[in-house]
């Protein structure tokens, strides 16, 4: 390895170290700030005014919104990726892809406002109630992560060696069979990355969800109930919080990091992991 190579490698390693250290630092900062409140988090009621900092409802809110939105967005996003990579003519793909990409950069607030102005009233009209609800949050969030999933999936599917595609077609597989039995399994690692990215985004997304979710700090009992996420809670209250309240918010932030790590690793394991490569 020559000198420039050593330097480059050292630079990359340093970069990785810095990035990891940064994350550790963030995690640490958040944990240290939140540490004293930790024992207070294990409760079912979040009501800072009464000194109650139980995160259960927030955890439930985050989990349900994420789950709900990914349940909608993952199949749709991978389907769109497949459509772009394998089904659509280059010309058609050239229309759909920028459209999706456009969606990727719609700022959260705009999504939130559209959710507020279109989805929430619609839900209110159709199902009654406030309209601010888990359902609204899931729908808005699904739209938000869709383009990410579609873009990363498309790329993963395109990266599958064309010779394999030909091999499958040559055995008389229909396009659907080729996609289902060859492309999707072969692109598994990339698809997992897509889902993991979307998962992180969904767990971490704040603004849009905040605006349509209703934010009642209670475990929702139906998709039409309002809910509050961990991030939404932090966003709502951080600006004013002090003392124990502030600590509790930081502690819930640490929890969020942990939750994300756990879910991500689980997703990786479920997908058979990169180790398989």
């Amino acid at each position, binding site marked *: 390895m020559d000198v420039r190579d050593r330097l480059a490698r050292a630079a990359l390693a340093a970069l990785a170290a810095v990035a990891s250290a940064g994350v550790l630092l963030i995690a640490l900062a958040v944990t240290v700030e939140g540490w004293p409140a930790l024992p207070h988090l294990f409760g079912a009621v979040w009501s800072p005014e009464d000194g109650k900092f139980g995160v259960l409802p927030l955890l439930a809110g985050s989990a349900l919104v994420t789950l709900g939105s990914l349940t909608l967005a993952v199949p749709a996003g991978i389907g769109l990726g497949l459509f772009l990579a394998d089904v659509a003519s280059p010309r058609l793909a050239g229309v759909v892809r920028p459209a999706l990409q456009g969606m990727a950069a719609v700022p959260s607030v705009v999504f939130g406002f559209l959710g507020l102005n279109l989805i929430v009233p619609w839900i209110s009209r159709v199902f009654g109630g406030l309209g601010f609800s888990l359902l609204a949050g899931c729908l808005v969030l699904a739209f938000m992560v869709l383009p990410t999933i579609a873009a990363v999936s498309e790329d993963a599917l395109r990266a599958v060696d064309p*010779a394999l595609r030909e091999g499958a077609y040559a055995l008389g597989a229909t396009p659907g069979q080729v996609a289902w039995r060859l492309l999707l399994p072969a692109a598994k690692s990339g698809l997992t990355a897509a889902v993991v990215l979307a998962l992180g985004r969904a767990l971490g997304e704040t603004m849009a969800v905040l605006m349509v979710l209703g934010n009642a700090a209670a475990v929702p009992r139906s998709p039409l109930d309002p809910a509050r996420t961990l991030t939404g809670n932090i966003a709502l209250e951080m600006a004013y919080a002090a003392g124990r309240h502030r600590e509790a918010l930081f502690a819930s932030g640490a929890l969020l990091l942990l939750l994300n790590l756990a879910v991500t690793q689980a997703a990786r394991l479920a997908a058979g992991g990169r180790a398989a490569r």
Partner: protein
Amino acid sequence: MMRGDTARAKLATRGLRVYYGGRAALRGVSLAVPDRSVTALIGPSGCGKSTFLRALNRMHDLRHDARVEGRILLDGRPIDRLPPEVLRRRIGMLFQRPNPFPMSIFQNVAFGPALLGVRGKELERIVCSALQRAALWNEVKGRLHQHAGGLSGGQQQRLCLARALAMEPEVLLLDEPCSALDPGATEEIERLIAELRCSMAIVLVTHSLEQARRLADRVAFFQDGRLVEEGPAAEVLERPQQQETRRFLARGDWHRTCRGNGGSQGE
């Protein structure tokens, strides 16, 4: 005369042209492949043999930069009348470059039959028999569920052959099936081809004139995207009509001459 040939043929092309981008790789090839026989395609590297083979089961449809003109008939009917997957189930293909799927050895061979809904014991039987016929069973029977990427070059080639055999096609397109095989394995595959000839039409691309001699009923010589000469194997190989064919065969004979100098063998 061509007409009559075409009508009786299992597979026939008429004025087949293939373009990659703008460049012509096949410039009007009319060839008839009779049933229950081996038709060998020979010719210099880059002359269009693989291109021809890929046209027969509509592989060119899958890439945007290839364009096919002319007619291709299976049992006398244009192949584009059939849904492509039906066509491709009837016409099996072994690619020049081994392309095992990124899954286990078993799953590779089972891929085709599984498409048709075959399951369980029946599927295992088919996989096992296909691997046996492709002379690979002994080497892989202990590791059927390992990743096919861990096979050697020649093993991968035979795996892909097994994969095609498992579909029991009516026509088999073989693009240099023995290029990565030792003489022993080559012998087994050649025995297989000789046996399959009794029940199907086989189109064999080969660079080994010896192999063409041993196996082919008919030989077609390609050059520069054209079919230069075609006919019964003995005629084309031993009494070629065209100047180009003669020249090609003569170069191939450098081997024979050389071999003579190699000294006589023990037995």
